[in-house]
Each structure stands twice: as C-alpha cells, then as structure tokens.
C-alpha cells in the first residue's frame, strides 16, 4: 500500500540516546558502544523477538529523523521527571541515528548461521503517538532453546547492516560543553549516504505529507 508496506529498499533508522547506548570507559567518561544500539526484547505472547525503528516514509529528511530522536529523549526525561528521579545533568540526550535497509531485516531468514529464524519483518506500527514507528518482529523456529544467543546473532547482523551516524544536537542540549554525539562511531555498514536526487527527495517529502494527512484523518489502518 502507498503508506503501509515497508519496501525492501526503504531505510529504517535506529536512534541513539545517551546513556542507553553508551558504556562507562572511565569514572567520568562514557563512550558509544555499538552493541547497545539495538534493544531486542521478547514478546511474551508470541515468543517473537521485537525491536523498534523509525520508517523513512514518515521521517523523510534528517530534520524529521532528528525531531523523532529529540522527542524520544524528551519523553524518557519527562517520564523520569514525573517520577521525581531526574537531575538535569543525568538527563537522557539524543545523539543521532543509524540507518539500515528493510531488506537487511528480511534477509535474516536466510542468513548463514541463523537457521533458527523462521520469519523476520519490519512493519509500520504507530506507537506512543509516533507515526514513524516501525516494529521489528522476528519469529523463531519452534523449540529454539537458546533465545538469548539468537538475539546476539540477530543483533550482530543488524549492526553490520547499519550505516551512519547522522549526528545531531537537540535544542534542549546545546548547553553541553561536550555533547556525547561526538563519540558516535561510523556504522559497521559504513557511513550513511543519501543518494536521492533532488526530485526524489521532493517526492519523498510530498508523499510524507500525504501519508501523514491520511493517518491523521483516519483514512489509513495499521497492517
């Protein structure tokens, strides 16, 4: 569908937030750890492995990608603030995003060394008010016992398909002397390169506005 099906060649973005994707190098120095980029969780109902991404159809330019990331960090901070456990110096900070193609997710099914993966897909699933949110869902062969080891293997393949980073400093964080985004490393899949022509980019933006309007007015349903 025009706004529903994520095509193999579509980019999906994974946002990095400090300190979630960082590890402590020394007492007062934390650096980006690529292994913490994705966070894979179990679906208690289906037993599938789930993850979250943002679909380029609804974040067609870096400005939209970063706006999503800034909202993500802001929501985490708001939640902590509401719980009375947030100090400004300990706030979460959006640092940038890495991109990977949908076909990299779907290729997990036939990936060498991942025979226990029965299905792998990414679908558009609005979540927490974020229209660009996409759900990564990986089904495992019945009887898979070492699910945690499988998660590591999946994570490794996703990391190797990821390119970037697209770094960013949110308005709320421009007071920092040293922004953690400076420690983001080049993705294992290389740097992110936007190969779209001007016309193609223009079309992506127009399509985004059409899809957003359709969503807001209830003309579209989740797949």
């Amino acid at each position, binding site marked *: 569908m025009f706004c529903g099906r994520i095509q193999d060649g579509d980019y999906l973005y994974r946002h990095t937030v400090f300190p*979630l994707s960082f*590890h*402590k190098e020394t007492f007062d120095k934390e650096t980006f*750890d690529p*292994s*913490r980029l994705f*966070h*894979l*969780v*179990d679906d208690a109902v289906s037993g599938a492995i789930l993850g979250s991404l943002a679909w380029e159809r609804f974040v067609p330019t870096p400005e939209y990608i970063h706006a999503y990331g800034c909202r993500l960090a802001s929501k985490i901070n708001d939640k902590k603030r509401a719980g009375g456990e947030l100090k400004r110096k300990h706030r979460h900070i959006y640092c940038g995003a890495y991109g990977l193609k949908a076909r990299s997710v779907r290729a997990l099914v036939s*990936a*060498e*060394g*991942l*025979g226990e993966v029965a299905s792998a897909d990414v679908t558009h699933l609005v979540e927490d008010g974020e229209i660009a949110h996409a759900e990564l869902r990986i089904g495992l062969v019945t009887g898979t*016992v*070492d699910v*945690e*080891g499988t*998660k*590591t*293997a999946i*994570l*490794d*393949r996703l990391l*190797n398909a990821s390119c970037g980073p697209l770094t960013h400093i949110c308005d709320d964080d421009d007071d920092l002397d040293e922004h953690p985004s400076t420690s983001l490393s080049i993705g*294992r*899949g290389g740097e992110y390169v936007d190969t779209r022509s001007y016309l193609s980019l223009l079309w992506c933006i127009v399509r985004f506005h059409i899809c957003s309007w359709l969503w807001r007015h209830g003309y579209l349903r989740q797949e």
Partner: protein
Amino acid sequence: MGNLLTKVRLQPLAVVGGSDVPKLDSPPPKQLKDAAGYTYVSANIAVSGTADISIAPRSENQLLRMTFSSVPIVWQSEINQEYQELGEALEEMTQLDEGDEWKVDVVVYQVACQVAAELLANSFPAPRIFNHGPKSVVFNWSRGNDNLYLTISSDYISALVSSPERIKRRIEFSTKDLLEPALVFRGLLSEQPVVSTSKATSQVSGFVE
C-alpha cells in the same frame, strides 16, 4: 594523557604446529571479587582431548591466546583492574529497578562472574558488556572488523564469531558445562563440529559453520 610507561602492551605469539604443541603450565586460580564481597574462583581446568573432538589437545591458556591472537594482551595489573570494574558493573546491573532495561537476574550475574573469573585466570582482556534484558549478559570483544560474543544466560552460554559479511561460527553449550569452558574456545578453533559433553554424543551442539 596517561603515563605511557604504565601501559606496557605485549603482542602474543602463537606457534601453531601439529599435535606436538608444547604444553603450558596451568595458570594459578584467580579470584574475581564483586562489590558485595562475593568471590568467584576460576576452576583452573586442565584440558584433555576427548574422543568426540578430533583436534589435538591444547591447554586452555593456549587456546585463548590463539583464538584471539591479535587481541592485545595487557599488563596483568591493568587486567585485574578491568575485571574489578567488570565485576562492579555486573553487580550494579543486578541492583537496578525492575523494568530497567539494564537490569539482569541474580542467577545470570552469578554465571557471568564465573565466566569472568575463568577469563581473568587466563589473563584475557576484559570484555565490553551489554544485555538483552534480565535473562542474559553478553561479553563482547572486537578484533578488527570481526567480533566475538559470549552470551551468558542462566541455562546456556553461546559463543559467536562474526565478520561484517557473515556469522563465521556459533557454539552453544549448557551452563552445566561451565566446568569445562575450554570446550567453547576449542570449538571456535576447530573446523570440525564440536560436541557438547552434556548432550548425546551423536548430536552436534549448535555449531554453525
């Protein structure tokens, strides 16, 4: 900048011959102490060949050094410090609130400490750690573009070696095999399927080539 003289790095030398690889002395038992005062002692296991594994027997120390022969071996005091910090980080992960994505179960922490003690006993560089939720901790090392992961859960430990292009090797074994950790490293070196001692002798233990 730190004092360069305090960071002496040794490049390991592995001589890979036939079956007559010289035997190294077993390392003395090492202790990993966490912040709560619990001590984990390495098992100091002597590796011996079994009928199930068709490679020459080698000491665990050699296996580790050969598997990661280009990983810099750092000075012992530095390793001790790294593992001290690793133990503290693991313990902190058990103390996080339920629902925190870095929270790990106590039983996972205990198994991870045992594995860490074995690694320390072999003077192996401390890994980076992350988790997938409360049920596991992952130890991670990088070597160029390749990565090695040890995924540690309460029931299973699995090793994975990958390159950017593909998963090169996977081995999983039960935590009941924790008293024979060299098995996993031997499997990483071997071109042959590796059989876990806890499973039926005819069953390949999740090895992926």
